[in-house]
């Protein structure tokens, strides 16, 4: 606790107006990065003592030090540090792919498919209903026609279906969880992301003619999405093959190798319109399942990734938009509650359909609450497509994501504790 307070006080002193004449505000990114890395990590450790996940601590530390509360990090620095997002997401996806072992997943394919289908259908239908029945109570929906409200609700429902694989992976890694629940939650989160991206492309194309009468159904967007997904899978296979060859024939300087793979995969995919998450996921999956080097590769990532994760989650906390939360907190809270309920219904129905055991039916919904990157990225696309909504939709979605990202990791950690899969990674196979 003393170092946490000391580093906080030191930063407070360094940021006071007495020292300001000595400072060059344009060169503040490195000190902000160093501070947030130490502070968030120590804060996460303190939060962990309260039996909450460390990443919740990282996120809360980010919120506390971010541009809305203590202002240790200003908006520009937060934006600068978001450069690390790509690196972190690639590392997370490589780990996720590496955790998906065919042998372990074989017995769960039916459950995964059923959970994905039931959750998706339930949540999208639920939000459609919400948009149509409750629209007179909320200013955003009230100004829309029935058809437009339905389109907006469909988009919101699609975003609500998404779960954050990054938070899921981070909690699994942090708690060293292993077992049936862990595999199920992770696999569903990952597969659902693909489904969400595809459905989103479809609904966005369908929504355009509803809002802009001069525009027709945009088939081009759909084919583009399919090309991106297909291309990403092929790139993932190539990257995975490359990693296997490296591990087989060179197998040294693993830290720089892992970081280079993550960085360049992200940069190249970003520049050429592919999905870095999908590429890394496929690459990790290939290394784990088609070579004997999977464990070594995952170990190398885990050795490298902790500092990147700390900064990634802290910055995601610092970048949460509190103005958005302030302006739409009531509707956001209702949406969060409604989404949670729909997650429970969808998961219960999906698990019941394949006759899963009682714990899966009643508890596993708690593993699907967290939301982050994908939902945020898609919400920004909606905003770019419908600029006349003047940020209202984006603010609402941002507020929902903010709340879900705080409560989601806590719920997942509690779930893994409840089903006794925490700490089992060190015990070998289950």
């Amino acid at each position, binding site marked *: 606790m003393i170092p946490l307070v000391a580093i906080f006080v030191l930063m407070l002193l360094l940021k006071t107006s007495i020292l300001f004449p000595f400072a060059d505000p344009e060169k503040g990114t490195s000190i902000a990065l*160093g*501070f947030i*890395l130490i502070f968030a*990590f120590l804060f996460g450790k303190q939060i962990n003592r309260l039996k909450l996940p460390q990443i919740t601590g990282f996120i809360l530390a980010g919120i506390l030090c971010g541009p809305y509360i203590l202002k240790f990090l200003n908006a520009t620095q937060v934006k*600068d540090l978001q450069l690390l997002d790509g690196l972190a997401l690639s590392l997370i996806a490589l780990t996720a792919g590496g955790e998906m072992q065919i042998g372990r997943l074989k017995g769960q394919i039916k459950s995964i498919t059923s959970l994905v289908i039931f959750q998706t259908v339930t949540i999208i239908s639920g939000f459609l209903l919400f948009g149509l029945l409750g629209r007179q109570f909320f200013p955003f929906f009230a100004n829309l026609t029935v058809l437009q409200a339905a389109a907006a609700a469909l988009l919101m429902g699609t975003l609500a279906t998404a779960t954050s694989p990054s938070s899921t992976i981070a909690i699994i890694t942090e708690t060293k969880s292993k077992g049936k629940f862990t595999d199920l939650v992770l696999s569903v989160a990952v597969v659902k992301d693909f489904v969400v991206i595809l459905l989103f492309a479809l609904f966005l194309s369908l929504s355009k003619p509803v809002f802009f009468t001069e525009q027709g159904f945009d088939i081009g967007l759909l084919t583009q999405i399919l090309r991106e997904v297909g291309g990403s899978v092929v790139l993932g296979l190539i990257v995975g093959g490359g990693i296997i060859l490296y591990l087989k024939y060179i197998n040294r300087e693993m830290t720089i190798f892992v970081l280079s793979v993550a960085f360049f995969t992200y940069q190249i995919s970003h520049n050429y319109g592919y999905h870095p998450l999908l590429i890394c996921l496929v690459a990790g999956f290939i290394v784990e399942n088609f070579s004997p080097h999977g464990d070594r590769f995952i170990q190398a990532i885990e050795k490298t990734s902790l500092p990147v994760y700390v900064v990634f989650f802290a910055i995601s906390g610092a970048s949460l938009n509190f103005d958005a939360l302030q302006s739409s907190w009531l509707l956001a809270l209702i949406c969060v509650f409604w989404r949670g309920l729909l997650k429970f219904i969808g998961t219960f129905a999906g698990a019941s359909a394949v006759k899963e055991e009682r714990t899966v039916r009643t508890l596993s919904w708690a593993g699907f609450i967290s939301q982050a990157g994908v939902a945020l990225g898609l919400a920004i696309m909606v905003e770019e497509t419908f600029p006349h909504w003047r940020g209202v939709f984006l603010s609402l979605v941002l507020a929902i994501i903010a709340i879900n990202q705080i409560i989601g990791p806590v719920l997942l950690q509690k779930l893994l504790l409840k089903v006794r899969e925490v700490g089992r990674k060190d015990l070998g196979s289950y």
Partner: protein
Amino acid sequence: MKAIYAFGLLILLAFLGSRFIVRHKSLSPLRYIFLSGLVYIFLGMYLGKMSLNILSTQVLDDLTPLLSLGLGWIGFLFGFQFERKYLRRFSKKYIGLSFLNFSLVFVLVSVAIFFLVRELYIEQPPYFLYGMVLAFGLLATVNSPTLLNAASFALPRKGDYCYLARFLASISGFWAILGLALLFSYWHFPFFDSRIILKGSVTLASSTLVPILLGYLFHLLTKKRAQEQDIRVYLLGFVFFISGAAFYFNMPPLYVAMVMGITYSNLTKIQERLYPLLLSLEKPLYIVFLILIGAIWEFKFDTRIALLILVFLSSRILGYVLPMKSFRFLLRFPFPLPHLFGFTLLSFGGVGIAFAVSLKLAYAVELTDVFLSVSLISIIVSDFISPWLLRISLLRLDCKESL
């Protein structure tokens, strides 16, 4: 797309080249260029705005934290070796020789450069010129033990000379970094309006106290049995923090990180656990650092720069070679110090590169660009010829058995 293929090819070539050359059991200049990592500066130049522009100005701006981390890392590693236990093993005469060596090279190079820049850069304000002169003088005193370590298998005998050379090369940077701290504190561009002494003293005091405090905090966090992953986070966090603070407050980045390293190494009892961790992170960080330096380097070469390089290198060599015999007399050194011994101290290494770039990053004026070009070219030339000079010096010296 071509650029990305080229980049992949360059990394592959650098990697294969270093493997091939490292395996070759001889100490050639080319091998040392790979071994010391200087080749990555060329890679950076090729990737930067001078050629492929993959590392464009915008990208480099975004990657500034990595550059500051690189500087902080080098400073921290350098300071970390100054453990009391380690220093006590050496005779005070060794430290005396190091200081004498530093003083003479510093004075000789500063004077030579002073007369030259006064003629060559007459249009520049005098305080810019004086600062640059002192910076050149300090840079000239930096040596690196990397070459001696790399050459250990190739040297026929390892006696007192090798031992002494390794010691001198390891600690010479201390005086230079200390000098740079004074230069940064009192040659502080924003302060040239008034009360330079007061403001400079405040900067110097902060540059010393803040890293001591951070080194102590780092020790507090790692003194109880911390996991390797935790130590890694603290290490990166504290180095980022201290080097970031240096940039934010215009403090000398190498100095503050060095002070933190000295503080930590003298408090902690987990050196054995920390060394492997430092080594595992060192290479990737250093390679990235050198690539970025290559990319930010606005290569300049004209008659004035050529003259500066010539005078800088020749006065430096003279400074290391000429006074050795008189130093023996002054210090009553236990064994002879022939002229040739100075040839073992000519390689600059990572500290020299970090020294050169820290000035450029702190002050973006025309003269710092000149300083960077002269420094980097001199470092490359010097490191290229130093394996050869080391060979002829140590081969011809009458080495005694190891102490």
